[in-house]
């Protein structure tokens, strides 16, 4: 089937087990697929937009109710949907960071956090991760002291990933937030890999801001995300416009400058909304995801020479492995070189590994059934055995 000139219908998730590390949590639910067809027209959600004429106030479809539900679900006071997590970082950085201000990031931070800080004129100050690739509260305290020495003041903002994109490690966000608050540093929780896959309670973890990614972890179309905050901070980051045109005298009601008025419209928003009941339910079963992940990890570890670079046992399904001592050895002499590995997996119905990668690579088991996890585990072992690698 074609969707247009040169655009084939995508069937990756129908034909393969998809282990792409960034795609697993963003696969749509059936309801979201229906919603994006029904609300694909440009301004589809604006049919019933009435005063005060702002996206998050629309009652039909129930966008206003959805915003309240998302805030309550994260145990925060206010939420706005954003065109991706990065736009959440950007809104917060633009509100709190001025030229030359130090901002706390980590050595495992996502690049979009750096860009948000850069765009606001801030200076990136990274908390170094330890030898286990974990960012600790002690390291955060040491970095804040270092920043104070260098800049004569504490950082104006901290952006901390609960689960980082490189190792999928679960960092002590609550501990780091506690340290930051002792220096009056507001803390943004980057939940790109957690909001929508595992339970997140903003008050319990001490977040001033929670950012989530719709297309990464909330079974939603791209670009989508959420920015939630406390009542106190909402007055700042969700402040309303005060500008007036000098010729026309026009004012713009209650539009919010950081959101450029209305943000996430149409199919992306309604796709998020349609998946939300499923997402709320699935976060309660993250333990099942870890059980499935363990099935695959044990199979990989049974292949001699394979190492897990992420923390182990796993606390998240995104995992980084080192197969320099196993699958990469085959690549040295294989006629397809490193491409044999992803090619062999493709032949077995597995998608999502970077073609050619046989040394260090990442994968994500989120959203698989147990049967699929066992199939994936068997596929890794089979590729090893077919290529003469010893399996314990």
């Amino acid at each position, binding site marked *: 089937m074609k969707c247009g000139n040169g655009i084939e219908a995508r069937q990756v*998730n129908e034909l393969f087990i998809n282990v792409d590390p960034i795609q697993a949590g963003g696969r749509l639910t059936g309801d979201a697929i229906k919603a994006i067809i029904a609300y694909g027209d440009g301004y589809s959600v604006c049919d019933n937009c009435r005063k005060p004429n702002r996206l998050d106030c629309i009652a039909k479809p129930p966008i206003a109710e959805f915003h309240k539900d998302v805030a309550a679900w994260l145990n925060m006071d206010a939420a706005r949907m954003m065109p991706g997590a990065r736009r959440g970082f950007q809104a917060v950085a633009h509100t709190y960071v001025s030229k030359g201000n130090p901002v706390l990031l980590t050595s495992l931070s996502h690049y979009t956090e750096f860009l948000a800080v850069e765009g606001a004129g801030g200076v990136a100050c990274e908390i170094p991760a330890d030898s286990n690739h974990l960012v600790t509260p002690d390291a955060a305290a040491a970095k804040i002291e270092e920043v104070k020495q260098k800049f004569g003041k504490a950082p104006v903002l901290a952006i901390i990933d609960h689960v980082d994109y490189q190792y999928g490690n679960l960092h002590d966000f609550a501990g780091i937030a506690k340290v930051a608050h002792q220096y009056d540093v507001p803390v943004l929780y980057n939940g790109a890999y957690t909001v929508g896959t595992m339970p997140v309670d903003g008050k319990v973890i001490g977040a001033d801001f929670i950012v989530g990614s719709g297309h990464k972890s909330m079974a939603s179309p791209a670009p989508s995300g959420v920015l939630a905050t406390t009542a106190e901070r909402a007055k700042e980051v969700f402040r309303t416009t005060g500008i007036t045109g000098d010729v026309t005298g026009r004012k713009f009601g209650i539009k919010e400058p950081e959101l450029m008025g209305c943000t996430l419209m149409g199919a992306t928003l309604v796709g998020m909304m349609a998946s939300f009941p499923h997402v709320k339910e699935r976060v309660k079963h993250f333990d099942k995801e870890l059980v499935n992940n363990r099935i695959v990890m044990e199979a990989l570890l049974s292949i001699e020479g394979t190492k897990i670079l992420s923390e182990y046992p796993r606390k998240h399904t995104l995992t980084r492995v080192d197969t320099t001592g196993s699958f990469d050895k085959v690549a040295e002499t294989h006629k397809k070189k490193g491409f044999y590995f992803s090619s062999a997996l493709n032949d077995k119905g597995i998608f999502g590994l970077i073609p050619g990668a046989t040394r260090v690579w990442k994968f994500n088991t989120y959203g698989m059934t147990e049967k699929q996890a066992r199939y994936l585990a068997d596929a890794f072992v089979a590729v090893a055995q077919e290529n003469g690698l010893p399996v314990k």
Partner: protein
Amino acid sequence: MILRETAPTHELDERQKAEAARLLENLERQVSSLKQEMLR
């Protein structure tokens, strides 16, 4: 969604077969209804 849950082998269990049958019957009814409405 059944195709996604059963990839790559698409071996359906009894529950999934029953669900697939229900969905296909529903689809056939809708196609039949469209034929009647649009081609009359």
